[in-house]
């Protein structure tokens, strides 16, 4: 029956070490024989004994001590040579061989056990510390989510509550101001509705329960729906570049419209009045590509990398909510990714930005030129 190897003891070099110990014993006893008691060669026996004890614990220590005793006896009292009677020094020496073997073995075993315990302790500590930082991140992320959400809700609420209060306090306010304030209440409420939807989407995405209701939709129709949504609030500078008429895809129409409205709304916000915002759609080898382009201020390169994140890691290592960007862009990207696609941005300061949505086409026949989209849909973001 094979015994399991004890780590650190019967490790790879066991055979080599046995050979070394045996060799040392042989050499020492030979030298001892040659010296025939004139030089204290017998001290050299301690070498293989120590080595045996350190390498193989009690077994090695005792084994090599006994072997040393045997060889000593052989050399001094059996082999031909000058007859030297057994005396107290010899006996003491033999006892010392044993003692050294056993003591060294014990010390070596203890040391080995302690270092194993220390290793296990360290591993345990590392696991605990990893779990701890995960927990901290999660709870910070949850707190930051609440903060992001609350600012997104508080902004329209301020407009609604404030405007309504002004109207209540001033019944004789002039009609033009009155209709402006009513408009603000309406628009803020619409934004609030959007925010609530985004928050619910974000919560569903985070908990992995987000799902799409896909249906075949003409691309041109979605773009037109988006344009109409903005015309309805008086924003006319949206420019739909005609998409190919037959182009269709399978998407959650409501959610995709949400994404486009978010992108176009941002484009308006970040470009000077009077400049157009273009939406165009085209097929490409990955599927359908929809781009929203503005001639606005552009986005700082440093910000580009975290513009889609809900949270980012600040210089001091803490996770901070990406309060400025709010939910819109991060939820938009999550929705597009849930379709198996991706949302990306290209931007030049002073020239403008282009946000690009790519929705992969399902079940395309294999093409030689392009590889099909390899995007993984991952709602668990």
């Amino acid at each position, binding site marked *: 029956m094979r015994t399991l190897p004890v780590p650190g003891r019967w490790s790879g070099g066991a055979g080599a070490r046995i050979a070394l110990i045996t060799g040392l014993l042989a050499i020492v006893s030979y030298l001892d024989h040659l010296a025939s008691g004139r030089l204290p060669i017998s001290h050299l026996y301690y070498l293989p004994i120590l080595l045996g004890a350190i390498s193989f614990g009690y077994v090695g220590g005792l084994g090599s001590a006994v072997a040393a005793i045997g060889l000593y006896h052989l050399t001094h009292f059996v082999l031909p040579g000058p007859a030297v009677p057994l005396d107290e020094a010899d006996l003491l020496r033999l006892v010392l061989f044993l003692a050294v073997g056993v003591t060294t073995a014990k010390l070596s075993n203890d040391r080995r056990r302690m270092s194993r315990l220390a290793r296990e302790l360290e591993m345990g500590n590392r696991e605990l510390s990893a779990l701890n930082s995960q927990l901290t991140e999660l709870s910070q992320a949850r707190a930051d989510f609440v*903060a992001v959400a*609350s*600012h*997104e*809700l*508080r*902004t*329209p*609420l*301020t*407009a*609604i*509550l*404030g*405007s309504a*209060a*002004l109207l209540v*306090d*001033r019944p004789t*306010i002039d009609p033009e*101001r009155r209709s*402006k*304030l009513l*408009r*603000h*209440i309406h*628009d*803020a409420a619409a*934004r609030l509705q959007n925010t609530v939807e985004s928050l619910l989407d974000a919560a569903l995405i985070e908990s992995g329960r987000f799902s799409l209701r896909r249906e075949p939709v003409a691309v041109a129709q979605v773009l037109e729906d988006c344009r109409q949504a903005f015309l309805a609030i008086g924003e006319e500078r949206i420019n739909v570049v005609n998409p190919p008429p037959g182009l269709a895809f399978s998407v959650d129409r409501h959610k995709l419209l949400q994404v486009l409205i978010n992108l176009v709304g*941002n484009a308006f*916000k*970040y470009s*000077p009045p009077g400049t157009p915002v273009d939406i165009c759609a085209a097929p490409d080898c990955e599927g359908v590509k929809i781009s929203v382009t503005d001639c606005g*201020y552009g*986005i*700082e390169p440093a*910000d580009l990398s975290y*513009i889609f994140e809900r949270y980012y890691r600040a210089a001091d290592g803490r996770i901070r909510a990406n*309060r*400025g*960007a*709010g939910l819109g*862009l991060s939820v938009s990207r999550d929705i597009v990714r849930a379709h198996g696609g991706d949302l990306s941005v290209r931007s030049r300061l002073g020239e403008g930005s282009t946000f690009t949505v790519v929705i992969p086409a399902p079940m395309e026949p294999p093409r030689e030129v392009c590889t099909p989209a390899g995007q993984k849909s991952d709602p668990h973001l």
Partner: protein
Amino acid sequence: MSHNSETGALSRRLEQSPYLLLVEDDDALRGYLANCLELAGHQVGECRNGFEGLEAFDSRKPDLVILDLDMPVMSGFRLLALLRGRERVLRGPVPIVVITGQDIEEAMEVTTIGAPEAYLKKPFNSQSLLVAVDELLASRAGAEG
């Protein structure tokens, strides 16, 4: 509305009404704030984002700036720091009122670089805003003699 802002508005119509710069990306909120301030007799320059805010600040020095910390692309924090820089180099101190949905303590933590003269946490009512604006304008007028 309290009497304070009514009489404030009246007295302002008699002299040059203060010019306030409002930097707020949310259209509805910006519209409401502009209306509220104009009703109290102020002139309001509306800016939809930090870039427009900087341009407007450079082209005409306002008596007071109201800016939202929670703006995307150019955040209110960055705008605040940039405005303070311009103050020092070009135009002298301008009181800044910051509005935010964050907790005031957290906002204060981050904005020590260009600490604003006042903070308002959303949602706030017109009263709080107008009182803060009036106080800052008055103290500045007092300082200038």
